[in-house]
């Protein structure tokens, strides 16, 4: 059975590493992970509050306007955006081993 003793895999890896659609997927994926964690935290917190009978709309509004919350928001907005758009700027962080792969395949052939 013939194998891939050509440069096709290099092009494939290059597309995964650097193409605009790859970058977009990276951004979406990072964003999805943030949302997933957020949902988990929100669910956990609401379950705790509900169990204790402490969930109150007025308290939530007051906390949203507090200095503590504002400070958190300021820090988080920076970390959040960086985390999401990192995938666009830095793209693929693993070495491209297609050259090593191809020389191994050639050695086999």
């Amino acid at each position, binding site marked *: *059975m*013939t*194998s*891939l*003793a*050509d440069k*096709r*895999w290099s092009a*494939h*890896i290059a*597309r*995964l590493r650097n193409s605009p*659609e*790859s970058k977009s*997927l*990276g951004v979406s*994926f*990072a964003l*999805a*992970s*943030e949302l*997933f*964690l957020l949902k*988990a*935290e929100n669910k*956990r917190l609401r379950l705790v509050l509900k169990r204790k009978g402490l969930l109150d709309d007025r308290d939530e509004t007051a906390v949203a306007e507090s200095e503590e919350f504002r400070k958190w928001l300021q820090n988080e907005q920076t*970390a959040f955006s960086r*985390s999401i758009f990192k995938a666009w700027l830095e793209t*693929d*962080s*693993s*070495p491209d*081993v*297609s050259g*090593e*792969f191809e020389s*191994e*395949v050639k*050695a*086999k052939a």
Partner: protein
Amino acid sequence: MTQTAKVESRSKGPFGLEILTDEQRFEMDVYQAFLNGAKGFWRDDVYARVKNEASSLANQSPSNIELKMQESDAYFLYSWLERRMQQFKYAGRWGLETMAEAHMNDIDRLLPADGDAKGAADSVPYYVKDLDVHQHPGGLWTSSANAVAHEWYQSGASFSGVGTDVMVDYYSKTVLELMPRKDARVLDMGCTLGRMTLAIKKAAPGAYVEGIDVCEPALRLAKAKARRDNLDVTFRLANCEEVPHPDASFDVVGSHWLFHELPKKAIKNTLDEMKRLTKKGGAVIVFDMQHVPGGSIGLWLHEGYAVRNNEPYAAGYSGLDMTKELKDRGFEDIKLLDFDPGTGATGWLEDLPPKRTHYSTVITARKP
């Protein structure tokens, strides 16, 4: 394929988790749960779509299949998820490596360097050093934080998102069956964090069990786990191509998921060492991705996996005729058996399984 019963294995939690706060542990667990969910989508839905789209190309070469599938959106998503989810797993905001590196000082305190550490990095072969194998940033040879990150990874789901305890059980049980007596001497080559090595010792408490590897930080962690579990196991810094033991030192010489990470020359050297180190009447076991089911489509996906997940020698190992290699070295009673790490099912796979999995081949042989 027959289903084997799942056997109870590790009872203690992953090493190093105690350095995280409850909140950090929660964040890391939820993040990994997100990734495992995405892996499930990739493993089941996207894989099935790609397999279906490629089915009309089954009589073509892997090279032609790759050419024709390059325009497929499903194949692009499959490839992207296969490669990039690994990077997210390690280096994402709550990735294993990110979390471990943030606690580097704690980890160094947990895993102090011993005599093996001096100059250890210099002897790490290029095929471990240069590739970020499995896309693990820095690999297992650079720091104890990397070793801890890998321990957390191994303790969770595998690359294909399924648990791996059943595989650990199967390997250790097979080694036990190959042992001629209870106090046999067993060598585990390429033991990394000692997961298999320790499982062998648990399955065969009377045996002398030794694990060797070229990654010193990984061995540091393996030793710590042995101390924690009160298991008398020797871990030695050594290259499987040149093992510092006299001829016929062991009754069973094995390796688990090592060969697919070795270039062909290193595989042949390792097989030579296995022959040299095994006693007459002893046995060898090689557990790894060897037989690729599914003909041309299976080979195409496997080669793609090798290059996408930075395991460039995986396809070379699959192309090797292991029966011939073992026969040429005088081994007898050579047996090859496919194993599904997800379910523990064994048999011989002709077709690609319905879900993407790390189908492995268990190869055993006797030295007359």
